[in-house]
């Protein structure tokens, strides 16, 4: 019994600093989350929203890069091949721009690859324009 009496005064258990200070807030937060399943669902899906937004962002940047880099090469090539007037080249370039910005005719991956290989645009020149 002596041993037990001695040990009672010296408690070995500790808690992190400020643990009890903010426990109430954490409990309330958890209750709100449990009572609002929609909020809970949003929290679960949040990382996927970010992933989807990143993919859309990357595609948007890629599209901008293609619009800015491809038509200038294309214009030179068109000019040397057909020796058309500047007005014709400009109209061709505008057509290209329209092709890129046309919402109804989204280019497929195959079409983009074909386009890049047709005009000999390699990945280095694409990256240089990023």
């Amino acid at each position, binding site marked *: 019994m002596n*041993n037990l009496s001695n*040990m*009672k005064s010296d*408690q070995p258990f500790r*808690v992190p600093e400020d643990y*009890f200070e903010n426990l109430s807030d*954490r409990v*309330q937060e958890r*209750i709100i989350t*449990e009572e609002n399943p929609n909020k809970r669902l949003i929290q679960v899906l949040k990382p996927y929203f970010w992933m989807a937004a990143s993919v859309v962002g990357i595609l948007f940047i890629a599209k901008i890069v293609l619009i800015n880099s491809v038509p200038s090469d294309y214009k030179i090539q068109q000019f040397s091949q057909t020796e058309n007037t500047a007005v014709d080249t400009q109209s061709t370039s505008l057509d290209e721009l329209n092709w890129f910005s046309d919402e109804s005719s989204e280019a497929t991956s195959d079409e983009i690859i074909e386009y890049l290989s047709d005009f000999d645009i390699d990945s280095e020149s694409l990256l240089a324009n990023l």
Partner: protein
Amino acid sequence: MNHKSDEEILELFRDKNTQSQAFSFLVKKYQERLYWQIRKIVLLHDDSDDVLQNTFVKIWKGLQNFRSDSQLFTWMFRIATNEALTFIKEKQKKYLGYSNNEVENILLANLEADPYFDGNKAQLELQKAILQLPEKQRLVFNMKYFDDLKYNEMSEILETSVGALKASYHHAVKKIESLLKLNEV
């Protein structure tokens, strides 16, 4: 600081506009006592934190229908105890196939590794001895030895007669003393 009585807190809780504030008063008033009750059963701090939060979520849900015919603290203490015991049983299921001795050693190794436990060898031996008690004796021992709860309070929480609790505590102390003697602490 919060000096509100249980009746005042319950009154505030019944009003939707002050419900959240009332619950905050309640958590702050009882968090430490409930935490230590849970901690003595589940031992590790992180586990205790999980169990305590589950306990308060249950209290929040049940408080809407709480009848004042039993004491608020007794009712909450019972929820905390049941949550802790359920947690321990779930944990023990993970060690199905292990002997009791092996499970005790795993639990003690976890306790030793807990950064919020800084007990010496003697205190570890005491925890080891407590782990070897039957569930009811373990609860009674923790509540009496560490928290110094009165037998009539324990009787309400554990729904056991005072006589039976006294007998349980007596057996628990005898068993722990003999285990400590065996290990020469």
